[in-house]
């Protein structure tokens, strides 16, 4: 289990994360959602080890994150940040292969090809990374972090993704989220910061709802992911309901001009 216990983080005495405790289970897909400035990315960076908590502890499989060497940690968790800018002209294939840095012999070329084919970027393998589109870059980076944890291990592992699908079109978003769901069978816990509430409703098992630097709601989707909590979280009318075909859940937010109308009527 990946745990954050009583995490507190501040920059020059201004608290960014006031107080947060989170749990991430292997074999589950956990989404972090919340309004802008809620501290989602900061929480993400604390969990990944990029930032160190001012107070509180992060534990990977029961062991403090500080106790791991960077190499050991790389075997347990892979991280995909929001943006990655390359400083030199590497090809897409070379970027993906970097994911095998820690275990170059265990990852075969076939593994890399499989991952790239599933993400539909195999045809881009010789292209310079910097010349790819935003969505293509995201898939290359995703392939890289998947390669890092591709081989099964006897201990639980975690995949941390900060807005991994923000530049992808809708069909690719579904493709990627379905692929991430497949990872759950390998005893991997997936954590993703996401913005699309509909996709969260249909793919996540757990949700961490952040607001103003602390966790507002947290738990199984069926327990906490409802209209009332979402409205409180975003301060905006949002409805969660089953789709009429019975296939999946719909999250609907009212267009702005209708809200003004209802408010006027209420007055």
């Amino acid at each position, binding site marked *: 289990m990946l745990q954050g216990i009583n995490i507190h983080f501040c920059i020059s005495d201004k608290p960014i994360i006031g107080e947060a405790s989170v749990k991430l289970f292997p074999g589950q897909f956990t989404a972090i959602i919340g309004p802008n400035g809620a501290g989602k990315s900061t929480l993400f960076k604390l969990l990944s080890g990029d930032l160190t908590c001012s107070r509180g502890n992060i534990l990977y499989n029961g062991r403090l994150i500080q106790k791991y060497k960077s190499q050991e940690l790389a075997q347990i968790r892979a991280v995909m940040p929001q943006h990655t800018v390359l400083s030199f002209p590497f090809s897409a294939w070379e970027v993906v292969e970097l994911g095998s840095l820690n275990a170059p012999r265990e990852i075969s070329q076939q593994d890399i*090809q499989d991952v790239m084919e599933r993400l539909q970027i195999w045809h881009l393998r010789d292209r310079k990374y*910097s010349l790819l589109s935003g969505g293509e870059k995201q898939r290359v980076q995703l392939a890289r972090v998947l390669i890092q944890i591709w081989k099964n291990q006897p201990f639980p592992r975690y995949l941390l993704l900060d807005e991994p699908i923000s530049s992808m079109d809708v069909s690719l978003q579904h493709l990627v989220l379905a692929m991430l769901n497949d990872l759950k069978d390998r005893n991997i816990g997936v954590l993703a910061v996401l913005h699309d509430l509909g996709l969260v409703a249909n793919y996540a098992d757990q949700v961490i709802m952040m607001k103003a630097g602390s966790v507002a709601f947290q738990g199984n989707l069926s327990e906490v992911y409802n209209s009332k909590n979402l409205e409180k979280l975003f301060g905006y009318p949002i409805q969660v309901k089953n789709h009429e075909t019975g296939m999946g859940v719909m999250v609907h937010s009212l267009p702005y001009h209708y809200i003004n109308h209802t408010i006027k009527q209420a007055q």
Partner: protein
Amino acid sequence: MKTLQSDIRTSKLRNQNAVMLMLLLILSVIVLLSASFGAFHIPVDAVIGIFKSQLGIDSHVFTDAQAQVLLNIRMPRILMAMLIGGGLGLAGAALQGLFRNPLVEPGLIGVSAGGAFFAVLFIVFGSSLIVMSPLFSLIGLPLFAFLGGLLVTMCVYKIASNSGKTDISVLILAGVAINALMGALIGLVLFYADDAALRNFTFWSLGDLGGSNWSKLGIGSLLIIPAIGMILKLYPELNAMALGENEAYHIGVNIQKVKYTLFLSSALIVGTAVSMSGTIGFVGLVVPHLIRLGFGADHRLVLPGSFLLGAILLSGADLLARNIVRPAELPIGIITALLGAPFFIYLILNFKKINY
């Protein structure tokens, strides 16, 4: 289809080996030409004869005078050019990888000037402070230059980097400031120098590769070769650093260790080079660039390739320096600057278009 595609690694390795072989070939041709041409001409077959007789194979196509000139004067100089040129090329590649920026160069960011300042400190005050054993007077100069280079590298890094990202304009400006400061400090130290020290300084600052001899080469190799080895081993880490410091940490790179190894080894190379041959600019900038433009960004090739191409460039420049105004010599720094500065301007003009 699948078997063809799964050959990427092997074919890449084969290409890299071919590039290395090609560079080695060019280097040996340059070495042969350098050995032959100069104020005192030695025909190529005589050069080969002398090499053969050194290996114990009897050969009588050369005179004693030719052997003397080649073995005592020209060879140490050629090897020194290779060592320093290769070292500067490699140090440039390492610093560019560390700063994550292709415009970084030891001279530009002030590392060479820092080395020069400390070298001058040693020349002027060294003799009065420390009892100079002959060995220490030989090794003290490069060691002091190394300390200066190290200090400046770390200063510039602290100034220009903000949570793992370096801002190139701040970096270049920091270089300008540090170069100015070091120049002023060198002037200040010279103000206090006595005549003997001034004479030493003059010889040192003029001293391009002309003063090379076997003992200087020995000291230089002792300091530079381990640093080269340390950098060459770091190619996977430097590849990972190209993604960003955080990303490299996520893949399992021990960032702090890699950083300090690169600080140390590049300062060791640049400091030693400055103390042995004065500041030679632009090799560290141009060489890694050419390798990347031609053969891609993988540091497994960029690092050793930069060493070989740097060796080619500087021994080639030295060949020109010794022959253009024969029997006089041009300072080698003039030639590298004449080649390097226009290339730098080209890089600035095309920086956006090169599309990293």
